[in-house]
């Protein structure tokens, strides 16, 4: 007997994978930026140095999200 297909999904599962890969860095960048704002509010005179550190933190965190993008191109 022929199986009856009621619904089917086409497309690439990698899109879901990237969605999952973006959760962690998203939370991470939020924490980094939020804590920097907090620290700058406490000590506005350190704002410059804090911003540099924030960008460093964001650079490391966001790399994970970008590896998620790279995986799509490498394995698909």
């Amino acid at each position, binding site marked *: 007997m022929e199986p009856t297909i009621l619904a089917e999904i086409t497309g690439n599962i990698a899109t879901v994978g990237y969605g999952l890969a973006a959760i962690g860095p998203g939370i991470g960048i939020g924490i980094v930026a939020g804590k920097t704002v907090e620290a700058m509010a406490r000590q506005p005179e350190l704002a*410059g*140095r804090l911003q*540099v550190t924030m*960008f*460093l933190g964001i*650079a490391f965190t*966001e*790399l994970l999200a*970008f*590896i998620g*993008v*790279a995986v799509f*191109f490498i394995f698909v």
Partner: protein
Amino acid sequence: MFAPEPLTEFPHCRLCASAQKQEIALLYNAAYLLIPMESEGEFHAPGIGEFLGLPALFFADTPFEINRIILVRLLAIALMLFLFWFALRKPTRVPGRNQSIAELALGFVQVQIADQILGKDLGRRYLPLLAGLFFGILAMNITGVVPFLNISGTSIIAMPLVLGLVAYVVFIYAGIKALGPGKFFKNSLFPAGVPWPIYILLAPIEFINIFIVRPLSLALRLLLNMMVGHLLLVLCFSATNFFFFTAGGWAGLFGVGTLAFGFIFTFVEFAVYILQAYIFTLLTAVYVQQAVAEEH
């Protein structure tokens, strides 16, 4: 309109390509038959073909083959060199307008990156390298939003990899020069202040982190930022084109939305290009600083 992408051969699998070629060709034909042909009304999402397998423009089939991205790189670097030469060709003690703009730009690298991370002495020594990295990357990135060029020179892996290699060589050289090879590798692999059995675990991790992940992550961060930015812009504008001209009718309303998004993303990308040049240079400075530190 359905058309299969041309079968691109990547150089690294040229050996195995001949054996697989027929099989792939068969699969392509099979897929081609299964999917019904549509002459109109299908949207093509941008893919990796934006970056790889571009047609050659000059010197085809030689090692010096120039395609669009390489031409953009050459143009960007030539323009950057010309601008700096033009601004600083006759330096005077009281700077004119052009000279003060160039000095402002170089001052940014000196104050915000070199002095802040490396301190006065080291910062002075590594300033030429950092400024070169910053403005080189900036010039090649910024072409992504320049009309008619529309692609970043750093959006295929070769350029970021070379830049990452430069940073890699520089921070190892800086460490060896400041501390001597023995002390540099000891400091890097066996950081002080942990009980010795931990080193069995820590030394390999530090080795992977410092000598493998660092240059690769520099290169990948730059590459993927540029690539994703370009894909987003292409997606927005090709969707606009599709909604306006192919879909027609009420779908044109979506086209207005995607056009607005594309416009906004152009400015976002502009900010990202500057930020990525800054972050690359900043991280290089941080790595140099960590390499020359007595203990960290």
